């Protein structure tokens, strides 16, 4: 696979869209060079390609107990000081945040386009869960999305080989330390990766899981076998118990049948005496009614007694009432006479005064009277008459009023309450009616009993009583039978279960055979893995040695790389043995050699990306490394170097014949030309960091940390 174009949009320091044309490095003899100061976006560009292909950027691995432990996944969005992938200005300012990287490549004459886009679902995403990631791959006239696209990428650039092609110079020391340590993990895992053995290992794991399951099953069968004998014994006991319960059920059946037969006979007999039965029933019912009636009559009688308490008053009052009224009349007469006497006394007093003070003048009209003597006589007669009347009234009023009042009070005590007579009559009447009714019922009962006297009542009653008893017995038997049947069903189930458990003692031979076969298969695969790993180790050692001998600055002292059986790497000495304390630069060369050896053994044809390759290397080693990698290996080689490693102008000058394309990554402040048209004809604006191009009128802010990619003339 060879890259043709790279487009990054709002990724890291790359604000907006940036297109890098790699057409010049399509030729296998050319390489690409990205030079820049620290912090200008070399690693970001390197990471953009990784993100595009693999969907994530994992921080540098760290060796922990001899094993390379992956760093954390760098998020797409976040907030400082956290590192994140999306351009910070885009994240803060854009209404719709979107980060995108596109790779255009050719593989076996076919165009491939890989596009990965992260689009915000909200106005200001705070974490990656608020983003939608779309992965697209177009190849061979077909377009694939997301999972299909990932599978397609995996087919031409396996993820597990990433580290042999994306080489991080800053991680070389850690890589070296890892290779020098334990045989467990470390380089051994790397070799297994290039052999694509993890998939096979996962297969072994799967088969082992199946084997374990079958083994567990067999183990359970064995355990069940041991338990089976116990179950069989318990099953026998339960079976006996079940037989006993079934025998009880049969007994209940038999007793119910017998009871039914007896009941049938009784019913027949009772039907024969059906008329008698009616009489018996009637007599019983009537007796019940009589008992109720008696209770009612008793209550009625109690009411009668209560009401009768006033009966004597009703009788007495018939005579006492007239006495009472007479007394009342007398009292009234006395009261009236007394009042009348008072009135007449006043009149008398007036006439007597008139008579005593007689002057011949009328007291009414104050006129002289015509006949004085006659008038005086008249007054005298009036006085006399009044005196007689008053005397008579006083004799009436002179009766003993108190005595009369006492008499009235005593007589009033004989006065019955209002309605007493009616209530006594009604209650008496009611009691008599009820009594009559009860007597009729008694008579009726007596008639019925007379009729039953001559019949065989006792036998019929005994039959009815017996029938009742048998009905009750039958209900009890049916209930007990149901209980026993329920118990029998439970016992049946339990017994069957125990019998099955008792039979389950035989071990499934087929399962045993499968387990054995899987065991052998696992051994075979593991042996194959071991064999392949050993073979690969030899090949990696050989390839690494070839690389190392080309890049070392002491080919006469060293004879190559040694990977021992525990996969620890060391540098061989020509005089025999291994270098015991090689320099860090020498170890870096060893590591690069092994990585390239691994790459070669993997057989994958893909571009190599090398970030900060010259770190910790001396001048000679750097040159030897470039000489080696920039040789025609049939692969594209992308190098991301800072100015401390390789001087841009010197490198271009020295390797002009091999460099296909070269770019410099700068911030606006690094340049004295317009970022758009590259014209140096510019003027500074009011704000010191603001500039305007006089040729294209472009204005830019040199304080912005936005990377500008400038292709260099070769």
């Amino acid at each position: 696979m060879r890259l043709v174009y790279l487009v990054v949009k709002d990724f890291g320091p790359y604000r907006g869209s940036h297109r890098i044309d790699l057409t010049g490095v399509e030729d296998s003899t050319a390489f690409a060079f990205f030079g820049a100061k620290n912090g200008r976006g070399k690693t970001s560009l390197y990471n953009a390609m990784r993100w595009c292909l693999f969907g994530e950027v994992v921080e540098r691995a760290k060796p922990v107990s001899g094993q390379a432990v992956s760093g954390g996944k760098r998020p797409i969005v976040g907030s400082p000081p956290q590192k994140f992938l999306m351009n910070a200005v885009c994240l803060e300012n854009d209404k719709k945040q979107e980060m995108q990287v596109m790779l255009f490549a050719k593989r076996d004459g076919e165009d491939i386009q890989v596009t990965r886009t992260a689009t915000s679902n909200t106005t200001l995403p705070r974490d990656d869960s608020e983003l939608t990631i779309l992965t697209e791959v177009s190849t061979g006239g077909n377009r694939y999305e997301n999972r299909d696209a990932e599978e397609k990428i995996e087919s031409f650039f396996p993820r597990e080989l990433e580290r042999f092609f994306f080489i991080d110079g800053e991680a070389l020391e850690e890589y070296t330390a890892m290779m020098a340590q334990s045989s467990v993990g470390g380089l051994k895992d790397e070799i297994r990766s290039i052999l694509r053995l993890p998939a096979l290992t996962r297969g072994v794991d799967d088969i082992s899981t199946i084997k374990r399951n079958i083994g567990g099953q067999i183990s359970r069968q064995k355990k069940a076998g041991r338990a089976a004998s116990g179950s069989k014994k318990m099953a026998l006991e339960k079976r006996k118990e079940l037989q006993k319960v079934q025998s009880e059920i049969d007994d209940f059946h038999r007793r119910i049948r017998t009871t039914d037969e007896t009941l049938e006979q009784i019913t027949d007999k009772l039907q024969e005496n059906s008329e008698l039965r009616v009489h018996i029933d009637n007599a019983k019912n009537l007796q019940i009614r009589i008992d109720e009636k008696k209770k009612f009559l008793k209550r009625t009688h109690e009411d009668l007694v209560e009401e009768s308490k006033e009966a004597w008053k009703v009788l007495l009052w018939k005579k006492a009432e007239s006495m009472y009224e007479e007394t009342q009349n007398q009292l009234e007469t006395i009261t009236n006479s007394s009042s009348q006497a008072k009135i007449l006394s006043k009149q008398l007093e007036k006439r007597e005064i008139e008579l005593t003070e007689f002057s011949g003048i009328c007291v009414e009209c104050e006129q002289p009277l015509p006949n004085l003597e006659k008038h005086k006589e008249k007054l005298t007669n009036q006085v006399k008459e009044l005196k007689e009347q008053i005397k008579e009234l006083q004799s009436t009023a002179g009766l003993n009023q108190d005595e009369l009042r006492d008499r009235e009070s005593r007589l009033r005590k004989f006065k019955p309450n209002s309605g007493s007579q009616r209530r006594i009559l009604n209650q008496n009447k009611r009691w008599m009616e009820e009594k009559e009714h009860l007597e009729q019922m008694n008579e009726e009962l007596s008639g019925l009993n007379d009729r039953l006297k001559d019949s065989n009542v006792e036998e019929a009653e005994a039959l009815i009583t017996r029938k009742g008893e048998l009905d009750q017995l039958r209900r009890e038997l049916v209930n007990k039978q149901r209980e026993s049947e329920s118990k029998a069903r439970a016992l049946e189930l339990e017994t069957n279960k125990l019998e099955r458990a008792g039979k389950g003692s035989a071990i499934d031979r087929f399962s045993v055979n499968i387990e054995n076969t899987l065991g052998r298969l696992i051994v075979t695969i593991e042996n194959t893995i071991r064999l392949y790993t050993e073979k690969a180790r030899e090949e990696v050692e050989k390839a690494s040695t070839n690389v190392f001998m080309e890049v070392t600055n002491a080919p006469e002292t060293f004879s190559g790389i040694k990977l021992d059986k525990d996969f620890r790497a060391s540098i061989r000495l020509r005089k025999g043995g291994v270098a015991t304390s090689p320099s860090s630069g020498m170890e870096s060369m060893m590591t690069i050699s092994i990585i390239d050896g691994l790459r070669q053994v993997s057989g994958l044809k893909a571009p190599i990306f090398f970030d900060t390759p010259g770190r910790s290397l001396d001048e000679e080693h750097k040159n030897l490394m470039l000489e080696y990698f920039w040789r025609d290996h049939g692969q594209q080689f992308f190098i991301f170097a800072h100015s401390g490693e390789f001087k841009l102008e010197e490198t271009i000058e020295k390797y002009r014949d091999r460099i296909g394309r070269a770019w410099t990554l700068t911030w606006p402040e690094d340049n004295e030309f317009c970022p758009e048209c590259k014209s140096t004809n510019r003027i500074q604006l009011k704000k010191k960091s603001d500039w305007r191009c006089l040729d294209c009128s472009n204005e830019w802010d040199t304080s912005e940390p936005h990377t500008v990619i400038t292709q260099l003339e070769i």
Partner: protein
Amino acid sequence: MKKPAVGSIGLSEASLDFVKQYIGNEESDVLDYVPFPTITSAFIFFFSLGYELEEIRQESSTSNIARGFNFEIFEELVVEDALSMKKSLGATISGYAEGGIAYIQNQMKKGNSLESFIKGKFGE
């Protein structure tokens, strides 16, 4: 005004036995007509009946009843009779009670009963 002697009330043995049949007790049958809870209440009833009917009979031999009963409440009614008959209040009242009993006994001889008598008397 001259007052009669107070005396005491009582009934003849036969009248007392007759009265007792109308006194309810625990042995009374539900069909028995026993409208009086005590002998005193029955005595008052029969006195009232005799007085109302102006039936008075004097028995020679009497058994005292209800010694604690204050029969003087009837003085107002019988005082003149007592004076005219020159008898005590108790003897006069007892005479009316005997009269009431004799009347009912006569009614019973005619086929009536106390309850039917009351029905007729109170239904007037």
